[in-house]
C-alpha cells in the first residue's frame, strides 16, 4: 500500500521532469546529432531516424582542415577561421575574467569593509553602469578605439570586456566579502598586519568561493558575447567563435552539418562549466536575486 502511494506521487513528477528536460535538451540534442550525421541521412525527408546509423566526426575535422562545406557543395575558404576563433575566444575570455576577478576582489573588499568619504558616490558611479544599455557608450567608444588603434586587437577587446564586466563583479565580490565574518581580519590587523598584507593572505583565501563564482560568470559572459566583437573585430586576428559562427551563417552559407559542428564547439566550454561548477556559476549568476 505504502509503495503504491509513493509510486502515485512519483509518476507525475517523472512525467513532468521528462517534459521539462525534453523542452530544454531536444534542441541541443538535434544540433549534436546533426554534427555527427552524414548528409544523406540528415537531409532525408521526412527525417525520422533521430540518430545516425554511422556516427562520424568528419565534420569536426573538416572545420580545421579543408574548411567547412558550402550548402551547395564544395568547400568554403574558412579553414583557418575556426582555429583562430577558438584561440581568440580562449585568450579573450580567460584574460578578461582573470583580470576582472583580481581587480573586483580588491574593490569589493574596499566597499564591503572600509568607511570613507564619497563611498556611496563611488559605488553609484560604478553600479549605474549595470542597467545601462551598452549602445549609449558604444557609438563614441568605436571612434575612441579607432583613434587609439585598438580596433581588431585582442588587448582592445580584453580591455572592453573588463570594463563592461567590472560593475557586476565588484558588486558580487562586495556582497560575498560582507558575508565573511570580520573577526579574523580584525585579529590580523591588531597583530600589525597591513591592509595590503591582509588582502592576499586572509581575504583571498576566505573569499575564494566568491572569486571562483565571479571568474566563472566573467568567463561565461565574455565567451558568449557577440555584440562587442561584432563591432570591434575586423579579421581573424581578433574574431572570437561567436563572430565566426555568424560568418558561417551569412557570408559563407556553410552546410548545416558543418555549421552544427561549429555550434557544438562554441557551446561546449559553457556546458562543461555548467556541469562541473554549477554551484559556483549559478550562485554568481543569481546573486542579488536569490538571497
Amino acid at each position: 500500500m505504502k509503495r503504491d502511494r509513493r509510486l502515485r506521487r512519483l509518476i507525475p513528477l517523472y512525467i513532468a521532469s521528462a517534459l521539462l528536460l525534453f523542452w530544454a535538451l531536444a534542441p541541443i540534442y538535434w544540433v549534436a546529432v546533426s554534427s555527427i550525421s552524414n548528409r544523406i541521412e540528415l537531409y532525408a525527408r521526412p527525417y525520422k531516424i533521430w540518430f545516425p546509423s554511422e556516427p562520424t566526426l568528419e565534420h569536426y575535422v573538416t572545420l580545421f582542415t579543408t574548411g567547412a562545406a558550402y550548402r551547395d557543395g564544395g568547400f568554403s575558404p574558412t579553414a583557418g577561421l575556426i582555429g583562430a576563433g577558438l584561440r581568440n575566444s580562449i585568450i579573450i575570455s580567460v584574460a578578461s575574467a582573470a583580470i576582472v576577478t583580481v581587480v573586483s576582489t580588491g574593490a569589493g573588499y574596499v566597499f564591503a569593509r572600509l568607511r570613507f568619504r564619497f563611498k556611496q558616490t563611488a559605488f553609484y558611479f560604478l553600479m549605474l553602469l549595470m542597467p545601462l544599455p551598452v549602445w549609449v557608450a558604444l557609438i563614441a567608444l568605436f571612434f575612441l578605439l579607432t583613434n587609439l588603434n585598438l580596433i581588431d586587437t585582442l588587448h582592445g577587446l580584453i580591455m572592453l570586456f573588463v570594463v563592461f564586466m567590472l560593475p557586476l563583479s565588484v558588486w558580487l565580490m562586495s556582497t560575498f566579502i560582507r558575508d565573511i565574518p570580520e573577526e579574523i581580519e580584525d585579529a590580523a590587523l591588531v597583530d600589525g598586519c597591513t591592509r595590503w598584507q591582509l588582502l592576499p593572505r586572509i581575504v583571498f583565501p576566505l573569499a575564494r568561493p566568491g572569486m571562483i563564482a565571479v571568474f566563472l560568470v566573467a568567463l561565461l559572459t565574455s565567451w558568449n558575447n557577440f555584440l562587442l566583437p561584432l563591432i570591434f573585430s575586423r579579421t581573424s586576428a581578433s574574431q572570437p567563435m561567436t563572430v565566426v559562427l555568424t560568418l558561417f551563417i551569412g557570408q559563407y552559407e556553410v552546410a548545416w552539418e558543418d555549421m552544427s559542428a561549429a555550434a557544438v564547439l562554441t557551446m561546449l566550454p559553457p556546458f562543461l562549466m555548467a556541469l562541473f561548477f554549477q554551484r559556483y556559476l549559478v550562485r554568481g549568476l543569481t546573486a542579488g536575486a536569490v538571497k
Partner: protein
Amino acid sequence: MTRDGLHRDHIFVLTLLVPIIIFVAILIYYPAIDTFTTSLTNRNLRINRPTEFVQLENYSYLLTNNEFWEVTGRSFLLVLITLPLEMIIALGGALLLNERFPGRGVVRTLVILPWMVPPVVNGFLWGWLLNGEYGAFNGLLYQFGLIHEYQYWLQNPGTQILWVAVVQTWTRFSFPMIVLLAGLQGIQDDLYEAAKVDGANGLQRLWRITLPLLLPSFAVALVVEFIAVFQIFDVIWTLTAGGSAGGAINPFTKTLMLFNYELVFRDLRIGRGAALSYLILIMSLAVGLVFVRRLYNQGVQDT
C-alpha cells in the same frame, strides 16, 4: 584606530578604487557623454559634409518617425509575449524541482543548460531546428502525423516575432526558475499544513499561499528579464534578422537594438543613432533605477 592607521587606509582605498574609476570614466562615461553631444549633431559618415550642431532635431525626427514607433512597439510586444511565457515555464519548473524525488539533482543540472548557450548559437540552433527543408521540428510533427507537409516556420513575417519570444524563453527560463525555486524554499511548511487542515485542496493552496508569497521573487525575475529581453540582439541576429550576411536587416523582427545597429553601422547616420541610444536609455531608466537601488541596499547597506 590611530590617525596614522586611518591615513594608511586612505592610500589603500585610493590605490584600489581610483584606477577603476578612471578606467570606467574614460571608457564608459566619456563615450556616453560624447555620444550625447553627437546626438545633437547631424554627423553622417555617408555624406561628405561638415558636421553641424542641430540641437534636438534628431530626437524630434525619431519621435515623429513611423519606423521608430513601430520598432519601439515591437520591442515592448516582445517583452509582453516573452515574460509571461518565461514565468509560466519557470513556475512549473520551480514547483517540480521543489518536490523531493530521486534524480532531482540531475534534472536541475541538465535543465539549466539552455541558459549557458551563447545567444548567437541559440539563434542558429532554432533556425536549423525550424528549418523548412530539413528541420527536426518538421520531422517530428510529420512523424506524429500533425503535419502532412513540411512548413517554413520562420518564413511568415507575422509570426516571426513569436518565434523570437519562444527562442528567448528557451534560453532564459532558468533564471526566473531558480529565483522562484529559492522563493518556494523560503515558504514555511506549516502554512501548507494549516491550509490542509482547513480543507484547502492543492490548487487552492497554490493560488492562496504559494503565489502571493512568491510575489517578491516574481518582481525580481521580471525586472531582470525585462532588461534581458529589452536589450535582445544576438538571438534575432542569427534567427531572423537576415543581416548577418551584411544585407538589409529583416524589418519584421527589428527591435530597438537592431534598429540602433542599423542606423549607426549600416546607414552611418551617427547623430541619429546616438539620439536613438539615448531614447532607449530613457525607456530602460525607470526599470534600471529600481534595480540599482536594490543592489545598493545589498552591496553596501548600512555601513
